[in-house]
């Protein structure tokens, strides 16, 4: 009978650093999950977490054993093959379909196999062991370390069978697909298992069973057709073995492959490596090719600060403060005569009986209050625009979210930071008092001058008190001089007030500038701590994620 063992893929020596390499890649995968949580697709992260747990479990459990699953369609002869390898009728065979409904396991070499079988969740009733005592006829020591699993079919009308197969194929070290000449091109096998597991070529073996049903000449055609089919589905260099459980030594070729696999002890790590490969590739779309920026560019930062300044209305605040300063200054250095005249003028508020409103309006200067939420939001949208362009969508979203993390608190923070810059405006310089005193002195002088003129008129011209008691009061000739004196005091007051106004204007402009600078500084501080830094942190997370993906895919 034909038992053509098609050469297995060249088996390189298991290098010691391959284990370290694998654990390094698993660590990288773990980091990817950690960094990606809340940012990437939940399903992918869930799959990765499941794989990590499974790989961790499998690596912890016996490395001396190689788990081999026999899977295939109903009636392909999995159980017959299983029995032929074991040399005993352990798994029931028959013509009714489907036959096997629970996985059967046979172990060569018991040490450490118990926990492994527990983890594989094989029913205790269906576990068998080939200890040396049982085997006298054959030297089964060559299969030492083999855990052979006979699985139910995957294509019968019993859906639970398929679930069982799905569970085992995700944890087996070596996947053996048993097909027969009638069923080897079934869509159920190829679409559901061969194609999704095409990457596992290194740990996949195809067994064409029941070749005794073919004419000798037809076997090669059949194998060639099967090979063509598998290669078309992306299974690189498929290993195909032909067997016939019906004949005495029809399974020898298959047995040889098992012996090689068990001896090499590489299937376990190769399987997990392929798992990691496959999963890491699914992470690839989240790792953009373009090198991400380390943070917000200087230009974008300048623009951001500018927009926040506008949102907080800093120039307007400064202007309003200047106005307030000048108003306050006018109380001190203004020419009181002016104010008196203004008060005499007709006032619409008085006519509307709303005089107290004027005072309230004077107190309108409460200082800066918050910032426009809308402006802030728009600024936050714009600041990330230059960064997110090259990022994968999920990371672009997370960067935008990071920029906006403090959006709700920003207006308050900006307002508070502006208030810190205010005090320079609330002081009252000492010279205002001097000027005020001087102005009132001038007013007094004016009043005295006017009174003097009045007395001169009374005593000097109209001789009210009889003969002049005093030359200063009784001499009418003095009137023009005193009048000149009064006019010049008035003029002096007016001059003082306008000169001081100019000085106040100068100093208020100076204060305004300084205040604007203060505000700018504190806005920059707020922007750095609440926007720029979170963005940089997020970009750092992304950079670390990229490094982890690279490490996992190396």
């Amino acid at each position: 009978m034909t038992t053509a063992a098609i050469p297995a893929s060249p088996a390189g020596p298991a290098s010691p650093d391959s284990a370290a390499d694998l654990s390094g890649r698993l660590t990288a995968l773990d980091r990817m999950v950690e960094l990606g949580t809340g940012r990437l697709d939940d399903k992918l992260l869930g799959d990765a977490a499941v794989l990590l747990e499974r790989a961790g479990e499998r690596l912890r459990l016996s490395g001396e054993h190689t788990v081999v699953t026999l899977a295939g369609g109903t009636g392909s002869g999995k159980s017959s093959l299983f029995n032929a390898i074991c040399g005993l009728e352990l798994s029931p065979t028959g013509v009714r379909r489907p036959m096997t409904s629970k996985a059967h396991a046979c172990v060569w070499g018991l040490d450490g196999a118990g926990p492994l079988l527990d983890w594989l969740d094989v029913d205790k009733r269906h576990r068998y062991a080939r200890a040396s005592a049982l085997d006298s006829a054959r030297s089964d020591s060559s299969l030492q370390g083999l855990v052979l699993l006979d699985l139910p079919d995957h294509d019968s009308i019993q859906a639970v069978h398929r679930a069982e197969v799905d569970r085992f194929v995700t944890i087996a070290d070596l996947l053996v697909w048993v097909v027969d000449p009638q069923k080897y091109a079934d869509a159920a096998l190829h679409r559901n298992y061969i194609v999704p597991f095409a990457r596992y070529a290194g740990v996949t073996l195809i067994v064409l069973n029941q070749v005794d049903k073919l004419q000798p000449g037809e076997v090669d055609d059949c194998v060639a057709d099967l090979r063509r089919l598998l290669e078309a589905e992306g299974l690189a260099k498929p290993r195909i073995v032909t067997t016939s459980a019906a004949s005495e030594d029809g399974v020898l070729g298959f047995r040889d492959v098992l012996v090689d696999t068990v001896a090499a002890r590489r299937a376990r790590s190769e399987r997990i490596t392929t798992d990691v490969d496959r999963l890491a590739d699914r992470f690839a779309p989240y790792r953009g090719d373009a090198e991400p920026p380390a943070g917000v560019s200087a230009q974008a930062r300048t623009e951001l600060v500018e927009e926040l300044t506008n949102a907080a209305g800093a120039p307007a605040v400064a202007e309003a403060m200047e106005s307030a300063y000048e108003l306050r200054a006018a109380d001190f250095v203004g020419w009181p005569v002016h104010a008196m005249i203004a008060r005499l003028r007709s006032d619409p508020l008085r006519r509307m009986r709303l005089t107290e409103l004027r005072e309230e309006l004077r107190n309108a200067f409460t200082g800066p209050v918050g910032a426009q939420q809308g402006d802030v939001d728009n600024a936050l949208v714009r600041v990330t625009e230059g960064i997110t362009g090259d990022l994968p969508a999920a990371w672009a979203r997370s960067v935008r979210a990071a920029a906006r993390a403090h959006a709700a608190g920003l207006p308050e923070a900006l307002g508070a930071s502006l208030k810190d810059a205010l005090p320079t405006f609330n002081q009252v310089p000492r010279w205002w008092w001097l000027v005020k005193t001087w102005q009132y002195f001038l007013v007094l002088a004016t009043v005295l001058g006017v009174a003097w003129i009045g007395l001169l008129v009374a005593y000097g011209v109209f001789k009210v008190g009889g003969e002049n008691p005093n030359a200063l009061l009784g001499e009418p000739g003095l009137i023009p001089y005193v009048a000149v004196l009064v006019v010049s005091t008035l003029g002096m007051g007016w001059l003082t007030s306008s000169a001081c106004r100019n000085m106040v204007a100068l100093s208020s402009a100076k204060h305004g500038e300084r205040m604007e600078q203060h505000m700018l500084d504190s806005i920059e501080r707020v922007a750095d701590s609440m926007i720029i830094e979170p963005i940089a942190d997020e970009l750092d997370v992304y950079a670390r994620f990229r490094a982890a993906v690279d490490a996992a895919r190396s």
Partner: protein
Amino acid sequence: MVASGVKSTAETAAGSSESRGETAGETAVTSAKPSEKPGEAGAKSGEKPGSETAGQGWAAAPVPSEPAGGKAGAKGAGQARSAAASREPLRQSDLTRALSDLRDRLDTFEFVLEVPGVEEAREARLELRNQLEDYALPRIQAAGVPMLVVLGGSTGAGKSTLVNTLVGSRVSATGVLRPTTSSPILVCHPDHAEWFLKGPMLPGMGRVRGPAPDAIAGDQLVIISSDVLPPGLALLDSPDFDSVFEDHYEFATKLMAAADLWLCVTTAARYADAQVWQMLQRARDNGASIGVVLSRVPQGAGAEVVDHFGEMLAEQGVGDARRFTIPETRVEDSRLPEETIEDIRAWLVGVAEDATDREIVVGDTLGGVLDSFRTRIPELAKHVEAQVEQRAELAQLVESAYGTALAELDEATRNGSLLRGEVLARWQDFAGTGDLLRALHVRRGRLSLTRRSSRRHRAPSRVRSLKAALRSGLESLILSTAEHAAEQVLAGWRGHPAGGQVLAGPAATLGTASPELSRRVTRAVSSWQDHVQELIRTEGVTKRSVAKLVSFDSEALSLVLMIGLLGYGTSDVAVEGGTSAVPQRLLKALFGAESLRGMGAKARADLRSRIGMLFDEEAIRFGQALDAAGIPDETVPVQLYQATYNLEVAR
């Protein structure tokens, strides 16, 4: 007599046909043992069935080759149908119209959204459509054509071998490579070859005149004429339905739907395959008449397999299908030994030869197919409704996002949250420096005009700044709210099972807010400001007592009104400053409470409607994306129900 107790709906047919009643019960329970029936079949044909000579016996059988047409068909069909003969043509044209209408309806929509079950729905629609076009319409129009028996089944089950054996020559390729048959092969009597070549059956497939079985690939129907078959029978060897080639599956289902009788061929190794049972269920649901062939039954253990298979058939609800078994045997010259298929041949020939039996089988299948439309189309309509519902959900997301945005905006323009930053600073500047009061003037006759203008040196600049600050504040608030709403919609759609697909497709160009939004917002806000100023000018009739004394500047006062409207004094900070409700008090004193309330309400309503309009335009983009995605709307299911109803009426 070989009768046709083929399927459960046969019972209804049996009621109308008295001649059948006597034998149907007996044969329906006949077990599928291969050795029981051939004697009878052989006796009937008068010859030893087997090689090519059998064909002459069939050809001699007096089966009239009926021309297409309702009247002639009805004449040959016997008593049961002659009663209905008078309304036949009318019924036929009505039915044709109803079915074509149904077919057209099925073409008018697409299942766009990937919701659970949509694959099945797409397939169901394709199947319905194909069945209408490939089978139902041609079958109604041409009642007298041969009975089409389609052999379908698993790859490697031996369909081609069975056809070859039945025809008696190698018309279809056989072999060990799977799958073997790639193009369907139709074998019929030479009299009907032309009809099958040109006819309305399976209009979507190309035709090739056989024999050229090895060189054809793709959707070509190879038609081979053979006088071995009786004129009333045509055999179709269809590709498998379970191999890796998906187009085979499509053909197999398409051909299955076009069959008068579907013969499912499976093997002893495969009879438990899920795919076999799915196809059987489907054939049953689609109203086909079914026969089942279990081939490659191993010698010895055969009885156990056959019994188990029988149990499973009963379990799955196809227990009344006619059953045959073929043992595992040597295949020579692509043919089975004749004795293994004798009962199949006898049954097929028996049904095909007898015009009445044939009409019954054909009529049963047609009736079954039309019956199946009663459930299948409403089911399809439910799937369409699911799509419509998804669309409604997506639209609802848009609506709620913009609704929330509008409500938020309404709140923000009322609670004073706009009065921050620049707006507040400008207001303080404007109010605190006394420029506000300078907007009020004491009436002093005509001269006052000229005097006033000379004194208001700084006022216009402060008024202008405040106006600009208000405008930009409102603008950015509206913009950011619109932006946020659009993001909400996008996030909602992304999270929605159907939304991701719309976003990937026609909605891919949707940014967050539309690019021209900022221009529109600018226009809307400045026209609102103009509107408020206009309100002050036209409706702000000053209280009579005040009017005599005070006049005012409408631009400055419109700003005061806006500040008041935006909630000055309601926000905590302004209260803290002790200047609560200054604008309100001032305005009330000027205009009176009544008039102020009216103006406030009008101005607010105007702002609201302007923003509403902006948001509507924004929301429309999403609606357009939904339209562009081609999701069916709610009229489609209604039309489908209507078409089904029309069909029922026409029957």
